[in-house]
């Protein structure tokens, strides 16, 4: 992965430079055409379209480059051998209105997140939030998540869920899932590992 990113960085810069050069080259004739030949509107329009396409291509290259740099940064700061990532998702969630989540790793608070209405709506629509990304040593660890919000009958509701796991060489992904338990008409809070 790393070598892949490194391999693509130099060509992207070259592509960007080439795109900038092509922009510069195509932009100057537009100005000349507008100044010198206003009687031929078709040619400048085509050139403008070309410039627009170049700009769009340049934007795409920048987005790709930004994504690659982000990946590279993440791999350097959180190598797979120590990485643990915690995600949060909501399935239905009619029995629980989420207000906040507090996350502890090995009894140390690592994240506390207050959710706005818009964020809760996004989770209800299937969004998955990356709540925490950090490093832990290889070996046994404990994750505890506390969920706060409004439960059935609009009562204040606070529940905890725990996961004990062993960190090995690969990155560890953990999902906190809020779902509805139809049998008891209560919310259910599950912490599980992604394989």
């Amino acid at each position: 992965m790393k070598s892949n990113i490194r391999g693509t960085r130099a060509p992207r810069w070259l592509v960007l430079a080439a795109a900038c050069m092509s922009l510069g080259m195509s932009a100057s004739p537009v100005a000349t055409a507008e100044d010198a030949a206003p009687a031929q509107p078709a040619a400048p329009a085509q050139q403008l379209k070309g410039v627009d396409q170049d700009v769009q291509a340049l934007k795409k290259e920048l987005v790709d480059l930004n994504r690659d740099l982000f990946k590279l940064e993440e791999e350097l700061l959180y190598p797979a051998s120590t990485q643990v990532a915690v995600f949060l998702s909501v399935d239905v969630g009619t029995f629980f209105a989420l207000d906040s989540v507090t996350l502890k790793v090995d009894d140390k608070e690592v994240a506390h997140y207050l959710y706005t209405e818009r964020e809760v709506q996004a989770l209800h629509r299937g969004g998955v939030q990356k709540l925490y990304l950090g490093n832990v040593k290889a070996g046994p660890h404990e994750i505890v998540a506390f969920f706060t919000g409004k439960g059935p009958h609009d009562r204040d509701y606070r529940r905890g869920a725990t996961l004990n796991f062993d960190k090995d060489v690969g990155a560890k992904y953990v999902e906190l899932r809020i779902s509805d338990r139809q049998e008891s008409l209560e919310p259910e809070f599950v912490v599980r590992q992604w394989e």
Partner: protein
Amino acid sequence: MLAAALAGALIYPLLAHSAPVVRKPAPDFVLKDTTGHNLRLSEYRGDTVVLSFWASWCGPCRETMAQLSELAAAPAVEAPVVLGVSLDGDADLAASVAASLSLKFPTLVDAKQSVGRLYDVEQLPLTVLIDRDGVVRGVWVGESAPVPDLARRIKELQSQ
């Protein structure tokens, strides 16, 4: 002498007034308002926002809050989003003061004063004008009524 100057040079940046800085992005935060809703500053991108820090013991703050309330009640096209941030440790106290002033905008409660530290509040009231892109466009510190100046700046921003 040299050591003292060096130490001063190292310590000064830590003590210096650092935020909010005009033309820099406003630090994002999320706080609970007095009705229990969580509000995040970045969710107001696209709107002109006036952020005002206050406390119940601050006399000039009450005057500013009352004037900002009038600003928030302006016709919808011209009215900015006004957010008051109470630095009182007690949410009930903040709510009762906000109710007594009949504020027409949300009052956020910064009981732990974490957002106050984020914005380096040293004097109250502190009022910050934030443009549609989330960039700080003006800061007023310790002035009881920046509203006329604020209204002019908001008009300028909205006409851009």
